[in-house]
């Protein structure tokens, strides 16, 4: 609250002796209000862009070899190179599942009904669990002597315990549990932002629910789905604690963030770690860019819901 006021006195006129320039700038929207941007801009510059470029130049100064030695080292080592594939194999299906599963559930819940708030709260609760409790819970619940295997064996569905932890599936479940509530919330808010009168108009023109969903709701929702996918994908892509705790951190779930962490803190090779981090960022940005490019081909105007 007081944050703004304290900044206000500092927003004096920048150049009172040159009114013409000031006037011309103000016409393009640049006036003393811009001073309010300064703290945030400086902040991003110092704490995000500077470290990023520092890491970038560090990655080209490896402890041994030429400027690209660390990148060569990463891509020539099959065990390290494979981390990209292992990460994508976890993150892409998890993100897709989270988004796709959210749509029908949010679609059912977009109207007003009794207990909506309670149900929303319940669906948001998994956010509070945190990776460690999820990991512990998955180990207990899905483990060989856990409740799920007991139930399955008791019902005679399986004879031997199903192995669902310390491998790919443990990490996958953990990603779904932590990622789904987040995706659901975003999809629900995008869906609620679509003006319901649009659908009613379609109904009055004789469209059944399939046609309404396909031709009215879905096109308006697609940009939101793309954004949601990107955000959940970022969450899933940086999977780190669960890959160690419920995964198989030396084999099946040796993800790229783990490779970067090991290079930095176990081998204390910062240039190599930076190189891996840069590769990781690039791979992630390629996926996000593809999705966001697809998003520009969608309708991104008003959904009528913003009032």
């Amino acid at each position, binding site marked *: 609250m007081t944050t703004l006021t304290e900044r206000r006195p500092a927003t004096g006129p920048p150049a009172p002796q040159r009114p013409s320039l000031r006037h011309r700038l103000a016409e393009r929207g640049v006036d003393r209000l811009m001073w309010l941007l300064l703290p945030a801009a400086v902040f991003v510059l110092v704490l995000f862009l500077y470290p990023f470029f520092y890491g970038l130049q560090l990655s080209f100064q490896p402890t041994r070899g030429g400027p690209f030695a660390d990148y060569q080292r990463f891509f020539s080592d099959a065990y390290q190179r494979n981390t990209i594939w292992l990460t994508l194999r976890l993150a892409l299906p998890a993100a897709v599942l989270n988004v796709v599963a959210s749509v029908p559930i949010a679609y059912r819940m977009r109207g007003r009904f009794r207990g909506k708030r309670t149900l929303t709260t319940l669906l948001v609760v998994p956010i509070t669990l945190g990776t460690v409790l999820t990991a512990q819970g998955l180990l207990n619940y899905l483990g060989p002597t856990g409740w799920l295997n007991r139930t399955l064996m008791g019902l005679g569905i399986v004879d031997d315990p199903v192995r669902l932890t310390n491998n790919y599936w443990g990490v996958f479940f953990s990603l779904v549990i932590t990622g789904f509530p987040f995706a659901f919330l975003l999809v629900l808010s995008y869906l609620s932002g679509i003006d319901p009168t649009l659908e009613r108009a379609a109904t009055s023109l004789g469209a059944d629910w399939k046609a309404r969903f396909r031709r009215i709701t879905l096109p308006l929702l697609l940009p939101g789905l793309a954004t949601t996918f990107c955000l959940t994908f970022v969450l899933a892509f940086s999977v780190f604690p669960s890959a160690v705790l419920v995964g198989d951190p030396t084999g099946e779930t040796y993800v790229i963030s783990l490779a970067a962490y090991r290079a930095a803190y176990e081998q204390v090779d910062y240039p190599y770690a930076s190189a891996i981090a840069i590769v*990781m960022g690039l791979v992630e940005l390629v996926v996000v860019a593809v999705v966001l490019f697809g998003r520009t081909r969608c309708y991104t105007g008003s959904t009528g819901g913003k009032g």
Partner: protein
Amino acid sequence: MATLTQRPRLQIVARPSSWIVWGVVIFFFVNLLGIVASVLVNSFGTQWFDTWLPSGFTTQWYGEAWRQYALFDVIIVTLEVSALVVGFSLLIGAPAAYTLARRDFPGKRLLYLVFLLPILMPPITYGIPLATVLYKYGLAGHLSGVVLANLVPSVPFVILTMTPFLEQVDPRLEDAARMCGASTRAVFFRILAPLLVPGLLAASILVLVRTVGMFELTFLTAGPDSQTLVVKLYNTMSSAGIRAQQSIDAMAVVYTSMMLVLVVVALRFINPTQLVARVKEDTDS
């Protein structure tokens, strides 16, 4: 007329798919309940091997976890870090959000993209170079490093959350106040501030939840006595071995209860469905 004839058919068609959807939701919750309950039961159990339930119940693990892991200090550190991050991110982010919502200027899209990047990148990607820089200047390894690192995604997050709230405040209100002779200070205190309280609350609570739950950045920059609860949990669990699983579970339960309180408080102040767009729920049928 068409509406009247269509309505009943809609419900009949929708019914089976509706059951599938609710079935999936219930399946998800049953398993989730199993996961949470197994941790909860284990944290109160004495010994639990190849049976449905532990052989006895006790609360000793909580006391043990509290003493063994110095949980009181860890919780204090967590609260300190979160309060500082919330305060600073509002101070830096809110004014920027105001300008971004009000003005159109050259380079605005580029600036917006730069502000969004920290949210769009996995924390480890920029966390490792950031930690390297912070260690270089001696800022990491204690509280200030943890706060600085956590601010990186929090400031953009405040900007992102505040912008829709700010766009809803009609600029003509401010203009009208100025016309009536209000000073900048008065415009801020009597027009903007009261209208922005929900936005500020929403942003601060979301940042709080994020910071308490943020693992990677804290993990990379924390020293031995600046670990937040998540990092402490991870460190104990990954180096477990001989330690009793039950006391780790007890600590995890403490963490989750803390987060649960925060999220329930958060949901009292913000409607999660209105984060992206304001909803005209009155017209909803």
